[in-house]
């Protein structure tokens, strides 16, 4: 009995150890990227070499599939990546399909930049943009073809990060149906804050209720707050602005979102921001925290709303001369946050 347990334990530990070795490389790299710590971040070619070496030692381990895909997304055209591609092709064919799409996407992006630069007029620019957006649809197609496959999750996440207008009800429903417990949803949630999909709220509520990962729940709570308040703004859009949105997301999607009860959405949104600012305050969000972001949203909602006395602004002009907003009381004032870019 002891012997059997010992063997099982060793097997399980082995796979966990492999995953931990990959994680040590990938998580640190992503963390430093997010925090913009480029000085301490490992060099890409070193990262590629390390992961390929590990993959060659453990070619069939599921963690190898994940790590090779992680590489593919970041460094698909880097020297040394042919080996990563070959390993994927022989052991993980569906993931290889996905990896090829990523490589094709990177090439299409280069072409898009070139075409935009060389475009003679606005129509040519729009045509280039639409052609590039088409590459995103191939990812959705792969996800449809291989439901529940890790590469399907990767594909859907990829689309959410790069093709906002393809984030629709179908995509959100696939994520909710097959991948509700996955840690990758931490990256998906923030994208939904300004989405136009009546299913986004359903998805985020499900994530908040069912994800086993606290960091994912934190993102979901914050995003729910932002999304609901964004939808409140959409209900008040002028019809010209609504038409513009329809041209991007489709008439039905816009109509569904605009039909909601604004007062109720606002109250709910505020509730989720409070949850994010309390329970999930310390969860990482870009270079800050979920709590910081949620508090800023609540401040805008409560203190920067139409009808409120504007908070004081005190500061210096470009020559170091101090002045404040209240110096201008008694005048109609336009405050313009601007930059020359």
């Amino acid at each position, binding site marked *: 009995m002891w012997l059997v347990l010992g063997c099982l334990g060793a097997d399980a530990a082995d796979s966990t150890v492999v995953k931990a070795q990959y994680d040590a490389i990938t998580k640190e790299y992503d963390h430093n990227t997010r925090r913009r710590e480029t000085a301490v971040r490992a060099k890409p070619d070193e990262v590629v070499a390390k992961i390929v070496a590990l993959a060659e030692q453990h070619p069939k381990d599921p963690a190898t599939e994940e790590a090779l895909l992680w590489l593919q997304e970041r460094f698909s055209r880097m020297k040394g990546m042919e080996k990563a591609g070959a390993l994927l092709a022989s052991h993980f064919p569906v993931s290889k399909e996905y990896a090829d799409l990523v490589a094709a996407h990177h090439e299409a992006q280069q072409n898009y930049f070139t075409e935009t630069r060389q475009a003679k007029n606005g129509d040519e620019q729009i045509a280039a943009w639409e052609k590039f957006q088409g590459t995103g649809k191939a990812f959705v197609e792969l996800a449809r073809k291989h439901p529940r496959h890790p590469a399907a999750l990767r594909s859907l996440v990829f689309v959410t990060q790069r093709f906002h207008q393809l984030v629709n009800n179908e995509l959100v429903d696939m994520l909710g149906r097959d991948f509700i417990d996955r840690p990758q949803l931490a990256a998906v949630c923030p994208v939904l804050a300004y989405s136009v999909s009546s299913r986004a709220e359903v998805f985020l509520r499900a994530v908040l209720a069912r994800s086993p990962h606290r960091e994912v729940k934190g993102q979901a709570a914050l995003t729910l707050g932002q999304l609901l308040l964004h939808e409140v703004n959409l209900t008040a859009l002028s019809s010209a602005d609504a038409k513009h949105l329809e041209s991007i997301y489709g008439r039905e999607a816009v109509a569904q979102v605009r039909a909601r009860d604004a007062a109720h959405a606002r109250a709910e949104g505020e509730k989720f921001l409070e949850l994010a600012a309390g329970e999930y305050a310390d969860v990482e969000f870009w270079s800050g925290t979920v709590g910081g972001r949620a508090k800023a949203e609540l401040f805008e909602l409560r203190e920067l709303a139409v009808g409120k006395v504007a908070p004081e602004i005190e500061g210096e002009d*470009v020559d170091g001369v101090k*002045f404040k907003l209240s110096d*201008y009381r008694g005048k109609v004032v336009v405050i313009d946050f601007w930059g020359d870019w």
Partner: protein
Amino acid sequence: MYPHERSLVKRLAGKPFALLGVNSDPKERLRQVMKKENITWRSWWDGGDTGGPIATRWNVQGWPTVYVLDHKGVIRFKGPREEALDKAVDQLLAEMRQD
């Protein structure tokens, strides 16, 4: 945006009106653009990038972001551009005359 703002400031010269900027450029760049674009209105210099203290407190996520305040300092409009901005300012100036 600069031409429209220039014409707004010019049109309302002498009226109880002020356009105030909160600028996120590095100082040198701000000096250059003020000279080049003939920017006569005042801006707070917000630390040289988009994460400055004023923009952060005002939860600004996109640039430009515009607020219109009445003469009592109350926020009355958020986000109007171009003609909508002109209309908003004219409305508040008219209200002020009636007060």
